[in-house]
């Protein structure tokens, strides 16, 4: 595994617009077959990073696809990359199918792979209409289909869920997971963190043009705050008991109790049960990805430490 080169390597990436710097020494790697979420606030630099990788924007630093470096004007390695950046760029006078024919590599599987993609993304109803008649969601689906053409080794998707309905979101999720299982690497930026939580193996958090956290999804969620919400027949007594046992307790809609490996739910129930307190309701209130990301962005220096 150590000998396998990363699907994407970004080293010391800096981006300037005139004298204004927007990316600051960005470094990260994407392992083959992984789904990597690129998250951050609006204007954090996610799209600029993706545009730099795709040689759409000038930059300083080194970017490699597998072992092959890419530069602003020498980027043969990008032939193995599919991408959807911002809104899909479409020719209004071409139909969806003509777009796919335009970009598909001319091989024996071309027609089959186009038909499969049309089917997987449920585009049959509009694929032969001109793109000028497309809705936002139709354009987005076509942009995604173009990104998936030619079995790329790396697929870069910038806000791929824009304009997609629930069915299309489900279709895209299924397609990403299938391709990932087949070895395709994904770099995905999305503000819909719930969806990213369901997909991503790894996470790169960007804030103000810098990487503030590079981790796995499992690690991030494991580090997040876990709480339970309790309702008992005597909440005041319950607070006293739990605080005496060094639990962090706050009052909200019921009792909010922080739990850790040592201070587990079982021990809470045992403590309260020993005092004959009746637990009427208990619910887990774990931080989700959104809360975890917001905490990281709120305290970037702490994460660097």
């Amino acid at each position: 595994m150590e000998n396998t080169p990363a699907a994407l390597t970004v080293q010391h990436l800096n981006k300037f617009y005139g004298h204004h710097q927007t990316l600051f020494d960005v470094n990260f790697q994407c392992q083959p077959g992984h789904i990597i979420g690129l998250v951050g606030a609006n204007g954090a630099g996610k799209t600029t990073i993706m545009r730099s990788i795709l040689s759409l924007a000038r930059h300083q630093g080194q970017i490699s696809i597998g072992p092959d470096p890419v530069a602003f004007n020498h980027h043969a390695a990008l032939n193995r990359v599919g991408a959807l950046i911002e809104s899909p760029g479409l020719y209004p006078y071409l139909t969806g199918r003509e777009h796919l024919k335009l970009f598909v590599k001319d091989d024996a599987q071309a027609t089959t792979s186009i038909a499969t993609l049309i089917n997987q993304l449920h585009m049959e109803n509009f694929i032969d209409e001109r793109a000028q008649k497309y809705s936002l969601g139709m354009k987005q689906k076509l942009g995604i289909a173009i990104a998936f053409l030619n079995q790329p080794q790396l697929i870069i998707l910038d806000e791929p869920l824009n304009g997609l309905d629930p069915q299309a979101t489900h279709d895209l999720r299924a397609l990403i997971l299938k391709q990932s299982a087949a070895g395709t690497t994904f770099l995905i930026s999305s503000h819909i963190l719930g969806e990213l939580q369901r997909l991503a193996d790894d996470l790169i958090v960007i804030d103000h043009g810098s990487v503030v956290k590079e981790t796995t999804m499992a690690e991030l969620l494991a580090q997040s705050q876990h709480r339970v919400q309790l309702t008992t027949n005597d909440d005041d007594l319950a607070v006293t008991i739990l605080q005496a046992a060094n639990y962090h307790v706050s009052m909200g809609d019921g009792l909010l109790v922080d739990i850790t490996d040592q201070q587990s739910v079982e021990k809470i129930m045992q403590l309260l049960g020993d005092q004959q307190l009746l637990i009427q309701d208990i619910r887990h209130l774990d931080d989700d990805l959104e809360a975890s990301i917001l905490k990281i962005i709120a305290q970037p220096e702490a994460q660097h430490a």
Partner: protein
Amino acid sequence: MLRLYKQEVFKLLKKRSTLILVVLLVMQNIVFAIFADVDSTHFIPKRLFIANFSTSSYLTLVMIAAAAAIITSEFEYDTLKNLVPHATSRQAIIISKWLAILTYSLGLYLLISLLSLLNKFLFFNQTFALTDKIAGMKIPIWQQWLITIAGGYVNLWLILSLVFLIAAALKKSSTAISLGIVGYFSLTIIGTLMFQLIKKWEFLKWNPLNFLNYPSQLIFPQIVGKMTRLSTTQLLWGNLVYIMIFLGIGLYFFSRKEA
């Protein structure tokens, strides 16, 4: 590069305007032939035939629009971001566009030339022969026709190379088309003034507008040569050098564009 070239030709063929403009050019060519057949006093068949029934002029306007659009539409539709990752470099993209326009222009020139020849045999078979000579001319009509086509084609590319340059530099179709058309008609507008200036300051004979006289000088080498102060060979090489310079500058601008 071959894949990029095929993509450009595919897009060109799929544009409705491509087919519509070809149909309009064909109709114009035939209508002018009919005019000459009906009223040969005002529409002189021999002269119209040599000028491809005036279709070469309209064709130049069509090609100016096509050359501008093939570059600027990528910025307008935000589609350059699809092309760049599929190409080895931006230079390969713009060269594929030049080649597509070269193919389009050659195809159109061939089409209207063959159509003009067909018109000649359909409408004017009894009126004149290709081996006839127009009064005052030393060469037969067929030769004059071919020379006019060749000279016009060289001049077309002088204009198109300028359009490519402006389109790549400014990314605006309207500006590229406007300046291309102004360039095309500038000789008619300021030709006399330019010749007076060349007479006064000879170095001005090297200005690119003077090289638009190439087709005229091919037909009337003595008369036009006295005004351009250049030999016909110099005019040909000048055209080619200016085309290379304009394309080279356009290539430089395009290769620096972010998508």
